């Protein structure tokens, strides 16, 4: 199990740490470091490993047109109209090195991003093959990959996870997950997870799906479709956003079986009924010794997730104080006591820190 995360000079966090539970719930205002924590946990098993996301690029004739590394997925989340690349990784865009460390089953793994000019080099303390020693500020570091801070090819020397795998999911990443599912449909269809996902998602809406297929739609283009007992079909893209996100995320999870599920903004598009369903699913995962870390702006979500899995969960209010990550652990009881006094924990940064 991931026990503790430490971050230094990564994204908007100059310094910070967080103890992790089987279910960790990050609750906090905007710009309080929640997403950075999830991205750090997603990258630490190896940012160059393949993840179930396919990022397709147009107009790059000299480069491969699709990308599926953890680093690519995170870069996609930071893409703006004018910018694509990795310059968001170092703190304040200017730090000379960033570090993410994670204690897993009492062993500490460290991932470092070492900046040199326009280049970012990757280094880890994990025992991996094919590294190359390189001096940074007079100190040798084993490098397993490098890339430009602007978009470009990655020189990857080691692409497997060196610790238990994590999967970051969010409504923003669903589109990339959707592309992955289409690209890997045969493998997924043969893994027999589809009926399980159909059964689970059918309990959440009036539509009773029994399976999913990849079939031609208009113009013979292949489309992912859910189908009903009576043979009727509906394109996955036409299902309501919340259920669609759940279906895609559940398929990705069941297909890749990560040890830790990271879900950013869990309440996005989701009705409380689905949140209850997710809370129970997380309970099942925890029983199977899996781990879940979620971020939310919803008190309902935090209370239901932690309330159902009380002994295994921690709720943390997060805050950035001069770019230092501050956390305050709260219980469901704390949230309810604050509510009794008319205080919304999500907006109580000024009170709690």
């Amino acid at each position: 199990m991931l026990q503790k995360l430490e971050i230094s000079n990564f994204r908007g966090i100059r310094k910070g740490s967080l103890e992790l539970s089987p279910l960790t719930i990050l609750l906090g205002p905007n710009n309080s470091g929640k997403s950075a924590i999830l991205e750090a946990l997603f990258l630490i098993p190896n940012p160059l490993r393949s993840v179930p996301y396919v990022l397709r690029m147009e107009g790059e004739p000299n480069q491969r047109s699709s990308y599926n590394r953890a680093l690519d997925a995170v870069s996609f989340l930071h893409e703006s109209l004018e910018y694509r690349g990795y310059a968001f990784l170092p703190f304040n865009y200017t730090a000379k090195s960033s570090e993410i460390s994670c204690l897993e089953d009492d062993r500490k793994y460290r991932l470092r991003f070492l900046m040199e000019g326009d280049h970012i080099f990757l280094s880890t303390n994990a025992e991996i093959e094919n590294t190359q020693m390189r001096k940074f500020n007079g100190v040798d570091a084993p490098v397993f990959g490098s890339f430009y801070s602007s978009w470009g090819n990655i020189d990857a020397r080691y692409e497997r996870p060196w610790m238990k795998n994590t999967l970051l999911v969010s409504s923003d990443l669903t589109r990339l997950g959707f592309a992955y599912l289409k690209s890997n449909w045969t493998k997924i269809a043969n893994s027999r997870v589809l009926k399980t996902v159909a059964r689970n998602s059918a309990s959440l809406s009036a539509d009773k799906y029994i399976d999913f297929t990849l079939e031609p739609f208009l113009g013979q283009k292949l489309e992912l479709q859910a189908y009903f007992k009576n043979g009727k079909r509906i394109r996955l893209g036409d299902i309501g956003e919340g259920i669609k996100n759940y279906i895609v995320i559940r398929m990705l999870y069941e297909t890749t079986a990560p040890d830790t599920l990271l879900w950013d903004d869990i309440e996005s598009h989701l009705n409380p009924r689905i949140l209850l369903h997710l809370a129970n699913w997380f309970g099942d995962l925890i029983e199977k010794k899996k781990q879940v870390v979620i971020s939310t702006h919803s008190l309902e979500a935090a209370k239901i997730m932690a309330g159902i899995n009380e002994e295994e969960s921690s709720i943390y209010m997060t805050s950035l104080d001069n770019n230092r990550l501050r956390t305050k652990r709260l219980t469901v009881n704390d949230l309810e006591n604050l509510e009794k006094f008319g205080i919304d924990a999500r907006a109580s940064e000024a009170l709690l820190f």
Partner: protein
Amino acid sequence: MRFYFLSPTSATAKNISRLRKSSYEIRRIMIESIPRKTLDKLIVLCNGTPDDRVLGVLAYHLNGNNIVGITKPIETRLGALGLLASFLNYSTPLRFKKFLFLIDQETDLPDDLFINAETIMENSGITFIVDESFDRGRSYNCSVTGGREFEVVVVVNGLDDIPTTNHCIEDHLAKAKGLRVRGKSKDAWAALSSEEQRLVFRNLKGSVQTVEQLFPQQVHGCRILERSR
């Protein structure tokens, strides 16, 4: 005075925000983001509406450099004061130095309310001495175990010149409107249309002197809150 809502989606936040006529006005009575560790004063509304709207008007006239948290607990009247001790546990080290509780008088005598408030504080492990007494108001210098010190101001809503046995914030509003109250001022105020009520609040925003005359104990309580210790 500008409010920092501790529950930005509450009815209190909504009611106070509805007082605005322009974004300038809203900036004059509320603030959405505050520098860290600057919030040290809290107004506790022990009754809901229209107490919140009255406070919005007071804030409009008071010094805008003072930022004050505002909350409406689930418990009403002195029940809200009973929650203070458990609230203090969540603010460590004790951030808040001053609390203003606004309570409707209803059928109680103000002195009885103060005695009850003092009993509640005693039972909550809060030691206190009376710092200042004024008409329908009392401020206390308080401390809890560990030597943490803070100030509690209790202000009772109601006016003697309104002939009713059930005094509340509507006494002040009825006087502002010039209503002849028979029975409860709450009912007389509720009988007005929302447009008539809105007009009363708009007029109150127009004159600080009128507000000081109509809401003397509330204005005094807010000024104690604004004073630095």
